[in-house]
């Protein structure tokens, strides 16, 4: 089968719904979400300690897509990452 792309996005849980909507609109064939991700980046330390407040930790979103689907997703997601923070990476992958 053709090589595909794997996206790894890490954003605040507060922005998760917005991100997933944007992914679907941009034509992502599916996605997987892991919540309760803690970490450290430009905006400092993120812990789960504030979870009770609805403030939440981060979420890790994984998308497997075709190469030609990537451009639309990139165009939809990068502005969100710029505005709200978070990181996004693409790697090569292949269907099992």
């Amino acid at each position, binding site marked *: 089968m053709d090589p595909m792309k794997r996206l790894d996005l890490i954003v*605040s849980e*507060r*922005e998760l719904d917005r991100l997933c909507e944007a992914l679907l609109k941009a034509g992502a064939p599916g996605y997987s979400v892991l919540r*309760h991700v803690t970490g450290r980046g430009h*905006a*400092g330390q993120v*812990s*789960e*300690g*504030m*979870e*009770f*407040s*609805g*403030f*939440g930790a981060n979420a890790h979103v994984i998308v497997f897509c075709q190469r030609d689907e990537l451009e639309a997703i990139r165009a939809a997601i990068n502005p969100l990452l710029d*505005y*709200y*923070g978070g990181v996004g990476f693409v790697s090569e992958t292949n269907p099992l």
Partner: protein
Amino acid sequence: MNASLVLQNLLSPPVLFFALGLLSVALRSDLEIPAPLPKLFSLYLLLAIGIKGGMELHASGLGGAVLLTLLASLAMAVLVPISSFAVLRTRFDTYNAAAVAAAYGSISAVTFITAETFLGALGIDFDGFMVAALALMESPAIIIGLLLVRLTAPGQPGRAEGLRWGALLHEAFLNSSVLLLVGSLLIGYLSAAFSPAGLNKLLPFTEQLFYGALSFFLLDMGIVAAQRLRELKETGAFLIGFSLLAPLLHGAVGLGVSLLLQLPQGDALLFMVLCASASYIAVPAAMRMTVPQANPSLYITSSLGLTFPFNIVVGIPLYMAAVQRFIPPG
């Protein structure tokens, strides 16, 4: 000031557990209440004070003092963030000033609950409608905060303004803590009116466990607040000063209003506590989404790391001493 009030507060189980939480972080112990257990206690406490408030509202009815008190609450929830913004803007940019101001315009339900149990220990009554005031004061500051950003920030990004407003009102009035509190208040009221037997069976859950659940939750709050204190360097002396003086000032204004409204002692303390406390639940969550330019460690550290412990440990007995000085017992 009455030293025994301070001691009585300090040595009550909830405050001692709060101190244990602070201590465990200071000692770098690995004690933690893993998520989502704190959420369980926070949901429970909102549900339980809602039920209790609704029940008492039903018992007491909506008299004239009620409406005036609720109006005054609303006014404070609008004025406090505006005046705080004016002060904070001298040192911070629009975004951060507005976000911190919004936190102080809103309330801390746990501080309110701790004040309630403090009154309970002193045997002083208070009215059920104060829970309605609590609910009413949670949201307006979110709107004010965003209005301040809109009106004063240079060159606001123009994206989808109309839609944003919808999202904001939604965030302000339908966020989970407001909805659960108001919903439980209504359920308490309705079932007091129509299903008193059902309500009775609910009380072992909402009343008998209340004090223990509060103690347990304050243990976690102590841990979380102390972790926030580690970020104090980032906060800066100005904001530290603000975090400790704002509750005193807002509390004093709250006392003045209570005198005007001739509130009884218990209600006056609760009103002061509402004015003096700052939100670390609804407001930060809303600000994170609507003002992402603001730095969360500023508004959370000041409200949760400083103002919250200050109110729990020192503020409540202090406000009570002031109340006892200026308002004659019931």
